[in-house]
């Protein structure tokens, strides 16, 4: 089956699901109080779409700030842990353990200390995003072929030259993967912080709509956030394949 046929089937399936959903609501198989029809979600999107934009911007700014923090702290940490076997053996179990602990547990405390504003959401995004970055970059650094370093050193390269000319290019793919993965984690952290202890942003908006039983508004907000994150992920994947081909 060709790519176009696959794409056609995918489009058709999604359309069929949306149609079945619409029919189910129209025939009262599901209660529109809980699950609104796609048509009413679209109507709400048309009415409140303009209001949602600044909220979405708010969420994205927090996400990017937390993301930048996670990358700036996580990449060097990963490089250090990956390039020093002893440090890796000592500290990595703790990093992996912290990665495994549900981060939402510490969010109430972050909110208590930093209030319900920007910094809590930014920190939350950073906390969610930093562990995958450290783990991925450290793993990528460890996998660099030691022969490359030996050869460069035996040909008289200085430590700085080895880092710049050998290690960085070899580590770059795993850093890029980490940067791709971390963005979704940062968005997740921001949204959870907004839901738990926020006064602005899409997460807060969704939580409030859910508690107030405003289903169409909630589903519209959910649709906006999912479409944005799906587009970001697809764009980054596209960028990645382009970059891979270039290299």
């Amino acid at each position, binding site marked *: *089956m060709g790519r176009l046929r*696959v794409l056609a*089937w*995918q489009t058709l*399936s*999604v359309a069929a699901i949306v149609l079945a959903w619409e029919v189910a609501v129209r025939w009262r198989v599901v209660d529109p109080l*809980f*699950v609104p029809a796609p048509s009413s979600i679209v109507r709400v999107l048309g009415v409140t779409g303009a209001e949602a934009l600044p909220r979405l911007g708010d969420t994205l700014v927090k996400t990017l700030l937390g993301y930048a923090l996670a990358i700036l702290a996580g990449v060097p940490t990963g490089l250090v842990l990956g390039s020093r076997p*002893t440090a890796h*053996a*000592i*500290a990595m*179990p*703790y990093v992996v*353990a912290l990665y*495994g*602990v*549900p981060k*939402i*547990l*510490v*969010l*109430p*405390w972050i909110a*208590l*200390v930093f209030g319900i504003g920007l910094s809590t959401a930014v920190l939350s995004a950073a906390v969610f995003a930093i562990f995958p970055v450290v783990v991925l970059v450290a793993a990528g650094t460890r996998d660099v072929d030691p022969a490359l370093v030996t050869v460069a050193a035996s040909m008289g390269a200085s430590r700085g030259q080895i880092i710049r000319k050998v290690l960085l290019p070899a580590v770059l793919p795993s850093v890029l993967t980490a940067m791709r993965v971390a963005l*979704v*984690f940062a*968005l*997740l952290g921001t*949204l*959870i912080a907004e*839901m*738990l202890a926020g006064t602005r942003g899409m*997460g807060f908006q*969704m*939580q409030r*709509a*859910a*508690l107030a*039983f405003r*289903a169409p508004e*909630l*589903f519209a907000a*959910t649709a906006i*956030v*999912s479409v944005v*994150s*799906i587009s970001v*992920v*697809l764009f980054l994947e596209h960028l990645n394949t382009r970059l891979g081909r270039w290299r």
Partner: protein
Amino acid sequence: MRIWLWRLGLLLIALTLWEAVASMLNPILYVGPSRLPGALARVLATRDLPPLAGHVWLTMGEIAVAYVLAVAGGLWVGFLLGLRHTVGRIYEPLLATLYAVPSVVWYPSLMLCFGLGPASKIAFGFFLGFFPVTLAVLAGIRQVPATLVTVAVSMGAKPWTVFRKVMLPAMASTMVGGLRTGLALSVVGVLVGELLGARAGLGYVINYAYGLMMTAEYAALVVLVAAAVLLLDGAGALIEARVKRWAG
């Protein structure tokens, strides 16, 4: 052996630093490790907090139901899509795309549909655990060498024998990895659900302690839950290692 001593040392340094920093700052907000045991004892004894045992059981029950559903649904959909090549090519990218959305986006809708009770937590735990299981089954099926299946079939093996003797060993390690990730995510799903809005369960107790500014009790509960999660994941890791050895 030396490594273990170093690890222990790092832990001690971290705890000492934490203690030193916390003791210099506002004790209402910053809780040092030395105050945790006392706080834990108070959590178990005090009448200001809801009795813990019932909430622990509720949360564990929610996790168990969510995970069982996630495994059942994930295996079913995974094999359904994986064994029919064309169907898989159409729907696997759609599933992978949905998996890429920050999961918490779905929780408010689930809370609206299923209410503040256990159902919404189970639904969210199921939802989070379902994807890694499904995707791992799909990836596992792709790892089965087609030639081996052809050879086994041509030598007269029945479908069940082919599945047990050829497919299962080839896909076991990937699948078990997915089952372990699924468990971790089911746990996260239930806990997130309880923290974002619940009337019972461990997450509710944590929120309750935090809401009353009982920071020490809150911290003790968080450390307790985190330790339980790590123990559970450690058990998962042991099982995973076992299965990988069996599969070779």
